């Protein structure tokens, strides 16, 4: 076939912005086979494969794209799943612009190859064919490993351990597996049916997933070891929400993004009263923060019918940690970005309900320790916006439950589990950790990379 020398990616069809902002259906519709093959022909299949080095789980990118070129879509899926247990998820939610696609040679002049879109295509195609059976698992080695948390880190670690012959039990605190893929990322970005299909692959590989199990409360890590688990992986994420500590934060209608998103995504509050968990209807909603969580919360608020939804972010757009595509989608859907602004007070009425948000304008000063220019308040710039709900999306830290019940586990002052960067080993022999539980809130794919590293280390530890 001819090489496709277009400077732009093949466009991916999307739902119309005005229409989609009224429902929770998936925004990006994915490539057809013809579009995927056309896009695959933009890949130069370079020998030094810089894209692979940019992928935290080292998917063999040119190889799977080659299979798509040839029309061998299932084979493309097999190439991906050799190293990536959640391709339908990654193709949708990875920040490809700062990972694989950042290093794509085609990106030097024009747009990089749409690697994420192609990965998604291969995974969705395989799922539509029901071709999720996992081939070539080794015989069981008789060794048991416990995985705490069924988010991206835990699922990836479990997947890699199963491929190495271990018996794996995944302990999940919620009533359904998936972690942030279920409670955090909304349906319109990552359909829950897709997450369940990926988890089913794991079950078919033999993973035992135990729900409603809050490790640290119902069982401790020491007790897991007593029960015969020879190694433990902690992938419990960073679920503890941070608040701003400004006046009015305990008023009604002030939510952590975790609460707002959990009600909507995990508990289906957007389908109330068909589902039992409620969420109140609001007209004016402010979301504080500039990450993916803030974008998700704002776009959910819009879909619940709010006329005005604001993103309040204290730096400028260039510093926003959210994925470019999500910022773009949010803007298309009519989210009002108030950049270089910060809330100083939430005002309420006598019933304790939110009535307004008081903001100040900021300017960027000298770079801080993180290398980003520090926002500085412009004196006298206060103004008030009418508001009836405020969602705080300024970050999360690891939940202290496992740390508190495991005194020997060394953690950072802010709660992150201390691990060896190379191996994921914690201060307790045989106990490994990875993902947001170690780094604080980061990305799905970095958590998956950490799960992969830990699986390799656990295998080495138990093979000694």
């Amino acid at each position: 076939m001819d090489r496709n020398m277009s400077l732009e990616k093949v466009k991916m069809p999307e739902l119309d912005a005005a229409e989609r902002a009224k429902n929770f259906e998936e925004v990006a519709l994915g490539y057809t086979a013809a579009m995927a093959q056309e896009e695959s022909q933009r890949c130069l299949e370079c020998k030094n494969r810089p894209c692979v080095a940019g992928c935290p789980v080292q998917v063999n990118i040119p190889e799977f794209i080659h299979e798509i070129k040839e029309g061998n879509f299932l084979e493309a899926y097999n190439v991906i799943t050799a190293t990536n247990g959640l391709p339908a998820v990654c193709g949708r939610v990875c920040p490809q612009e700062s990972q694989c696609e950042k290093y794509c040679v085609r990106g030097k002049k024009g747009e990089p190859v749409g690697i994420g879109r192609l990965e998604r295509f291969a995974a969705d195609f395989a799922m539509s064919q029901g071709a999720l059976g996992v081939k070539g698992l080794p015989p069981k080695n008789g060794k048991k490993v416990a995985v705490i948390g069924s988010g991206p880190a835990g699922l990836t670690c479990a997947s890699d351990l199963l491929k190495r012959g271990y018996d794996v039990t995944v302990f999940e605190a919620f009533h359904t597996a998936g972690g942030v893929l279920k409670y955090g990322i909304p349906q319109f970005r990552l359909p829950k049916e897709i997450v369940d299909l990926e988890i089913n692959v794991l079950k078919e590989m033999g993973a035992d997933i135990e729900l409603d199990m809050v490790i640290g409360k119902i069982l401790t890590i020491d007790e897991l070891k007593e029960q015969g688990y020879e190694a433990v992986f902690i992938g419990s994420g960073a679920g503890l929400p941070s608040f701003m500590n400004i006046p009015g934060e305990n008023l009604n209608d002030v939510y952590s993004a975790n609460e707002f998103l959990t009600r909507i995504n995990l508990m289906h509050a957007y389908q109330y009263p068909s589902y039992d968990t409620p969420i109140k209807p609001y007209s004016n909603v402010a979301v504080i923060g500039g990450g993916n969580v803030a974008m998700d919360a704002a776009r959910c608020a819009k879909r619940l019918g709010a006329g005005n939804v604001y993103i309040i972010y204290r730096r400028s757009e260039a510093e926003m940690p959210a994925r470019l595509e999500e910022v773009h989608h949010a803007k298309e859907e009519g989210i009002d970005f108030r950049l270089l602004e910060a809330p100083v007070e939430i005002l309420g009425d006598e019933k304790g309900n939110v009535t307004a948000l008081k903001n100040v304008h900021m300017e960027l000063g000298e770079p801080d320790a993180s290398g980003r220019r520090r926002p500085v308040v412009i004196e006298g710039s206060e103004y008030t916006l009418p508001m009836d709900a405020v969602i705080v999306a300024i970050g999360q830290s690891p939940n202290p439950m496992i740390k508190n019940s495991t005194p020997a586990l060394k953690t950072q002052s802010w709660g992150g589990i201390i691990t060896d960067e190379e191996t994921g080993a914690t201060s307790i022999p045989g106990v490994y950790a990875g993902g947001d539980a170690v780094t604080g809130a980061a990305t799905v794919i970095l958590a998956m990379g950490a799960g992969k590293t830990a699986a390799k280390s656990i295998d080495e530890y138990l093979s000694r």
Partner: protein
Amino acid sequence: MFKILEKAELARGITKMVIEAPLIARKAQSGQFVVLRTHDKGERFPLTIADFDREAGTITIIFAQIGRSTQQLGTLGQGEAIRDVVGPLGVASHFDPSIKKAAVIGGGLGCAIALPQARHLKAMGVSVDMIAGFKTKDIIILEDEMKAASDKLIITTDDGSFGVHGFVTDALKQQIESGAEYDVVVAIGPIPMMKFVSALTKEYGIKTIVSMNPVMIDGTGMCGGCRLVVGGKTKFACIDGPDFDGHEVDFDAAMRRLAMYDGLKERSEDCRLVQMADKEN
């Protein structure tokens, strides 16, 4: 799935269930709670563990059928199963070993949660007076159990239809005035009751522990839906509590947050407790 081994109606609209949950029973301690979900479209809601039996592998819950979810739970019978039961959650109650005499106060359904606290204190060798308050005679629960768990049981009714006429605060004040020297007061019930008990004991300088029951979703500290203001600081009831120092809790703020979803709650007209409450108001 968690099987219901026993079900009994303790009073009108107040149900007791013994649930098969061996892992939870093995770890449960007085003061802790579970989060339940009755079916696939159900919400998650918290209930205190009213009792547990480690040998039998069971926990007991006692609840009033006042909202959508507790009514759904009430429709389940013996032999049926609850979709999800998560626990034991929260920090177990902790009492100073030097305590000699305690007053344990329960308001209505709160008596079901006050009872294990009384038993716990009795087991520590503490002399326990229990004061149990009810609106009216018909909804008195656990009288025999409370009698057995305390050295003295005073039952009050708001309408005087049984026991002492008046509120629990009246009985507590009378006990203190007549010379009962309490080292600690434990108050569990509706927020106004805990608020007034705390205000009273503050006058006398008696340490007071209350058990808060805000709206919860996950119950594991990941959302802050249950947050309270305690001693001027934000606390999450599910991981920092549910027990707090009654002299430090901002009860008015807690009451406002508890009322947040009131407009949305679908309350069944069949519910007798609601009918009763409506009649009284």
